Structure formats: structure tokens, C-alpha cells
């Protein structure tokens, strides 16, 4: 059991980070913190990809000039993560612009306050 966990430690870290991110997204009253929560979830998935690309005793995926297989981490998950990081920050930027507009409209960043105002409309 302990060995099974030790052999997959970072995967468990991923599981925990996903949970924390989800908690923030669901429970944080502050919209900015909700967005951070979403980011947390995303970085957890990045870690998942990076970890599964890893190979014991290997090196970064810089390959030799011959057509010979070397022992390198898989480049494909890295590419996925690179793309996803950029996508993630882009979405975050849009979310923050929306938050600024919401602040102008509702004068609050707390979801409960905003919902209260909307109910009273």
C-alpha cells in the first residue's frame, strides 16, 4: 500500500489539488478566488500530464540527431500542457475582465451579494 502510494505520489498530489481547486470554485464567495480555484484545477491537470510523460532515468525530450530511440520524457504531454497553459491564462484574462465589469455593475465581488441584488431586481 505504502509502496503503491509512493510509486504514484505526484498523482495523489494531483488528486488533492483537484479537490482544493474544486472546493474554491464551488465554495469561495469571492469571484476572484473562484477564478483562482479554476486555475488550481487546471495546474493539477498539467501536473498529471507532466508526470505521466516522465520516464525513470530519462532526460528532457531533446533527441539525438540519429533515428535512434533515446530515453527521454514523452514530448506529447508537454506540448499539451504548453497549449493548455496558454489557453488557461487566456480564459483567466477574460474572466477577470468580466469580473471588473461585474464590479462596476454590482459594486461587489461577492457572489452572494450579487445574487441578492439580482433577486431584488
Amino acid at each position: 500500500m505504502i509502496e503503491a502510494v509512493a510509486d504514484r505520489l505526484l498523482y495523489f498530489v494531483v488528486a488533492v489539488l483537484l479537490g482544493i481547486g474544486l472546493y474554491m470554485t464551488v465554495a469561495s464567495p469571492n469571484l476572484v478566488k473562484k477564478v483562482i480555484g479554476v486555475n488550481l484545477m487546471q495546474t493539477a491537470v498539467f501536473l498529471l500530464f507532466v508526470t505521466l510523460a516522465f520516464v525513470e532515468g530519462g532526460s528532457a525530450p531533446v533527441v539525438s540527431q540519429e533515428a535512434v530511440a533515446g530515453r527521454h520524457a514523452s514530448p506529447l504531454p508537454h506540448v499539451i500542457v504548453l497549449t493548455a497553459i496558454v489557453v488557461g491564462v487566456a480564459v483567466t484574462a477574460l474572466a477577470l475582465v468580466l469580473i471588473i465589469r461585474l464590479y462596476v455593475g454590482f459594486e461587489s465581488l461577492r457572489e452572494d451579494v450579487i445574487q441578492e441584488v439580482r433577486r431584488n431586481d
Partner: protein
Amino acid sequence: MSVSLVEVSLAAFVILAAIGTAIFRDVMAAIVVFAAYSLGMAVLYTLMLAPDVAMTEAAIGAGVTTILLIVTIAKTNRSSAEELIEVIHWPAVVVAGTFTAVVAWTVFEFPTIGSDEAIAWSNPSVTQHYLTYTYVETGVTNAVTAVLAAYRGFDTFGEAVVVFAVGVAVLVVLDREVFT
């Protein structure tokens, strides 16, 4: 694989930082802790043989995202911090805890980290193809660059579109026009 002390301490660090982000009531504090978290992740990525990812995470995750967050706080307000810690929302803890438990449960079925028998690594037509033929086919030694720019250039095109889309989207959201 034997777990190194560095790895364990980094794992502990990112988890603690994540918890800190979640529970600090002061948004500014949460942002700062989140930036530290991102840096921790970047180091972890390096450990996992992903320097490209680590650099990007440091620049974008810890850098750009933090700046964006701070600008947002500057434009809005920094939630008052009479209490240090957020009230814990227990139902959400149960939901998130269940989610974590389910994911953790599946983790036992994962191949061990770094195993060269894991199909994600050993698939002859995908990962092994990239590792073997990248230079021959593309003339680039950095396999990540090759996959990014050549083999899966379409994803990268999509990534560029995402950035462009957000730019235009912000114009729409703020009802602005450019070049007028």
C-alpha cells in the same frame, strides 16, 4: 521509484500553498500564495523532465496570471481582511473531498511514475516515434518544439486563435472598438 526528499517536500509545499490560497480571506494574500504555488509547480515540472513546461509555467502561471489578478484587485477592491481565514464551507468540503477520493481511488490503477512499460511512454507509433524520428523528419532536436510546431502544429494554431479570441472577446465585453 524511490521518492526523493526534494519531491516530497515540494509536494507538501504545493499542497500547503494550495490550501493557503483556498482559505486566506484576503484576496491579495491568496494571490501571493498562489504565485508561490505556481513557482512550486514549475520546480516540480523541472523534476519531471519538463523544462519547457516549467519555464512557461513560471512566466505565465506565476508571472502573467499573478499580474492579471493583481490588476483586477487594483481595479476592484481587496476584500476586507478582518479575519484571516475564510469560513469553511463544509458541504463543499464533502463534495471536493469525494471528488479527490474518487480520483485517488483510480490512481492506484495508474502505471507507476516513470515506468518504461507505461503505454503512454512506450507506444511505438506516438511517443517513441517522436523520440526516434523527430530530427530526421523535422530537423529539430527539441522534440517538444517539433511536436508543437510540426506534428501538432494545428493545436498550436488553435492556441494562437485562443489568444486572439480573448483579445477580441475583451473588446466585445468592454464594448470597445479598435482602429477607429
